[in-house]
C-alpha cells in the first residue's frame, strides 16, 4: 500500500520534471540571455572575430532573436557545437535554439523531434579538390579519400552518391571543420565534401584559395535553418517569426538605415504591423511591441545580413541564387504579417 503511494509520487515528480521543459521564453527571460548553439567556427556563418565577438550569418539570427526578446542583440551566449554534439545540446536544453548550418530533414523533424522554424539558406552538398589533381567532375572520384564531418547529412549523402554511381571511396571521419581543413590541406584526403556554402567559406580562409576548385556537381538538397525542440510551440513561433521578420523586412524595403524613419509611421499597414506601430503582434508572441524593430535593427534585414557576412563583396563571395527574394526569382519567402 505504502509502496504504491510512493511510486505514484515518483510518477508525478517525473511528469512535473517533463512539463518544466516547456516555457522556454520564461527561462530565457529569467536567465537574462539567450543560449544559442552555433558551429565551432565557419567563417561568414559563425566565427569569433579578433576580439572574440561572434559574428556571421547564423550568428545574425541568434542576435535578432535576442534583440526581439531583450531589445539587446548582445544578450546571447554562443555555444559552439559540432555536427555530432548539436542535437544532444538542443534536446537536453543546453541551448535554447540552434542556428548552425543544419539541414531540415524528415527524421530530424519527426524522429529526433526538432522543429525547424524556417530556412535561412538553401544549399546543396558539393566537393572541393586541389586544382593539381586535375579532376573536373565528381564522377571521376572513384577510389578517392574523402574528408567528411561525422554526424551530418553529408556522410549519408556521400555513401548514397558513391553507391549509386558504383564508385568506391575511403571516408575519413572528422569532428570539426577546422580539423577537416587541416587534413585536406596536408593532402591526407583528396576531397573535402560538405555543404557548398561551407566549402566556399572554408576555401576563403585558405592561404591560396585559387589552388582549389569546387566541382560543379551538387549532389543533394540542404535546406539550412534554425531549429528548436519539439513541445514548446510558443517558443518555436517566436524564433520562426523573428526569422520571417528579417525576410519580410527585406521584401518590404525595411533596412537598418531607414527603420527609424519608417517607425514614425508609414502608409503601408504591413510595415506598421511589423514595426509595432499598428496592431499587437508583439503582444501575441509575449514580447514588447517593438520586438521586430529591435530584431531588424540588430544586424539589418535578411539581405543586409547576407551581403555583410557571405555576399559577393566578402571573401566568401556567395551569390544570392536560390536565396534571393521570391520576387527576384529566389525561394526566400515570408508569410504575411497579419
Amino acid at each position, binding site marked *: 500500500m505504502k509502496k504504491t503511494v*510512493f*511510486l505514484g509520487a*515518483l*510518477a508525478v*515528480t*517525473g*511528469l512535473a*520534471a*517533463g*512539463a518544466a*521543459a516547456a516555457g522556454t521564453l520564461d527561462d530565457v527571460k529569467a536567465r537574462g540571455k539567450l543560449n544559442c548553439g552555433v558551429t565551432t567556427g565557419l567563417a561568414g556563418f559563425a566565427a569569433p572575430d579578433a576580439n572574440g565577438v561572434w559574428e556571421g550569418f547564423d550568428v545574425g539570427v541568434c542576435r535578432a532573436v535576442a534583440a526581439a526578446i531583450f531589445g539587446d542583440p548582445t544578450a546571447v551566449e554562443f555555444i559552439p557545437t559540432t*555536427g*555530432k554534439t548539436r*542535437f*544532444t545540446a538542443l*534536446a537536453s536544453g543546453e541551448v535554447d535554439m540552434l542556428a548552425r548550418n543544419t539541414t531540415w530533414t524528415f*527524421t530530424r523533424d519527426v*524522429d*529526433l*523531434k526538432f522543429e525547424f522554424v524556417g530556412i535561412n539558406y538553401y544549399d546543396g552538398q558539393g566537393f572541393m579538390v586541389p586544382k*593539381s*589533381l586535375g579532376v573536373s567532375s565528381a564522377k571521376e*572520384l*572513384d*577510389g*578517392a*579519400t574523402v574528408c567528411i564531418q*561525422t*554526424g551530418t547529412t553529408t*556522410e*549519408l549523402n*556521400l*555513401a*548514397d552518391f*558513391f*553507391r549509386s554511381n558504383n564508385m568506391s*571511396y*575511403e*571516408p*575519413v*571521419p*572528422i*569532428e570539426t571543420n577546422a580539423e577537416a581543413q*587541416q*587534413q585536406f590541406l*596536408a*593532402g*591526407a*584526403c*583528396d576531397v573535402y565534401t560538405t555543404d557548398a556554402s561551407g566549402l566556399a567559406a572554408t576555401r576563403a580562409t585558405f592561404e591560396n584559395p585559387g589552388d582549389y576548385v569546387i566541382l560543379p556537381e551538387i549532389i543533394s538538397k540542404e535546406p539550412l535553418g534554425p531549429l528548436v525542440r*519539439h*513541445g514548446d510551440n510558443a517558443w518555436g513561433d517566436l524564433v520562426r517569426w523573428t526569422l520571417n521578420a528579417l525576410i519580410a523586412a527585406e521584401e518590404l524595403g525595411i533596412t537598418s538605415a531607414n527603420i527609424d524613419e519608417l517607425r514614425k509611421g508609414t502608409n503601408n499597414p504591413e510595415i506598421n504591423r511589423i514595426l509595432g506601430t499598428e496592431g499587437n503582434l508583439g503582444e501575441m508572441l509575449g514580447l514588447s511591441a517593438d520586438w521586430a524593430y529591435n530584431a531588424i535593427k540588430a544586424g539589418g534585414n535578411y539581405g543586409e545580413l547576407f551581403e555583410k557576412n557571405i555576399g559577393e563583396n566578402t571573401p566568401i563571395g556567395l551569390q544570392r541564387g536560390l536565396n534571393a527574394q521570391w520576387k527576384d526569382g529566389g525561394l526566400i519567402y515570408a508569410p504575411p504579417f497579419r
Partner: protein
Amino acid sequence: MTALTDPPKESFRLSMLIYDTRYRSMTIQVVALMGFMLLFAWIISNTLQNLSALGKPVDFGFLFEPAGYDINQRLIEYNSQDTHLRAAFVGLLNTLLVAALGCALATILGVIIGVLRLSHNWIVARLMTVYIEAFRNVPVLLWIVLVMAIMIETMPAPREFRGENPTASMLFGDSVAITNRGVYIPEPLFSRSLGDISVFGAFDISLDLIAFLVALFGGIYASKLVKRRADRIQAATGERPTTWHIRLGLVVIPPVAVLIALGFYLGYPELKGFNFKGGIHMRNSLIALWLALSLYTAAFIAEAVRAGILAISKGQTEAAYALGLSRSQTMNLVILPQAARVIIPPLISQYLNLTKNSSLAIAVGYMDITGTLGGITMNQTGRELESILLLMAIYLSISLSISAVMNWYNKRVKLVER
C-alpha cells in the same frame, strides 16, 4: 564426550532487529539495500517518464534499420545498406583489434623499459625514468592527437610518390609505403586459396588462416610432447636427449608446408589512381591510436615490472650469481619468472585501462565501437540512452572477459603454497 543441552530458545521479538546486536547489522544492511534499490528505481522511472514525455520511449528497433554511412576500416564485409547493428559490430571488432595490438606492444615495451630502468648504466636508467614520467604525466588524449598530427603533417601524401621525379619513394624494395594516410605493407595472398567459410551467415573467416593456425599450433603441441618425453628420459636416466632440431622442425615445417601447398605469395601495395591499392592499409588513425596507447600504457606497465623485480629479495640474485649464472640469465631464469606473480595483477588493470582508453579513438576518427554505435549511429538516430546503455554493456563484457582470462593465467603462475 559431554552432552550439552541447548540454551532455552528465546522467542523472537521484532524489537530485537534493532536492539539485539546479533541482528542489528543485518537490519541496517537490509534497510540500506532497500533504500538503494528505491533510489535506483526512482532514477529509472524518472528517466523513462521524461523520455516518454519527450516522445522518445526506449526502443532498440533502430539497430535493425539500415545504417546509411560507410566505415573505412572493416574487418568484416560491410556497406552502407547494412544495419546499425552490423555497423556496431564492425566497430566492436575495430576496438578489439586496437586493444589487442595495444596490449601486446605495451607489454613488450613495458617489460623492456621496466628492466632497463633498473639498469646499472646511469644514462640508460635515467632515460627510462624520463620516459616513464613523461608518458605517465601527460593525458593519453594529447599523445594520440600528437602522433596523428605528426603523421599527417610530416609524412608525404600519396601524390608525392607519382611522376617523373617523385619527392617520396617506397621503402624496402618498393614493398612498404609510408604516407600521411597510413602505412601500406605487403599482404599475404594464396594462389590456391581454400576460400572462406561463413560463420552464422554473418561474416566470413578465411580457411587459409585457419589451416595455417592449425598447422602452427599442432606443431607447437607436438614439440611440447617431445619436450615432455625428453624430461621423462632425463628424470629416469639423468641424460637428456638432444631434441632442439626435432622441436624446431615440428614448429616450422607444418606451417611452411601449408603455406607452400596454398601457393603463398605477397601482394605489394601499388600507386593506382588517388591511392595505393593492394597490400594491407594500416590507417594513420589506427597507427596513432595504437602507438599512443601502447607508449602510454607501457610507462605504467614498466613501473609494475620494476616493482615486481624489486619485490624479489636480493638473496635470489646473489644466489644465482653464486651458482655462476650470468646477469641476463639471472634476470630471465630467476628474477622475471618470480616477479611475474607480482606483476600480473597490476598488468590486468593496465590491460583494462588500455581497452577503455581506446574509446578516445574518435579524436583521430578511428571507427571503433564508440565511433560507430556511440558516434554516428547515436547521432543519426537520436537514440542516446539506448546507444550509451549498449556501449556500457559492451565495454563491461570486454573488461570482464579480459579479467577472467588474466585471472585464470594468474592462478596458473601463482606460487603454490604448501
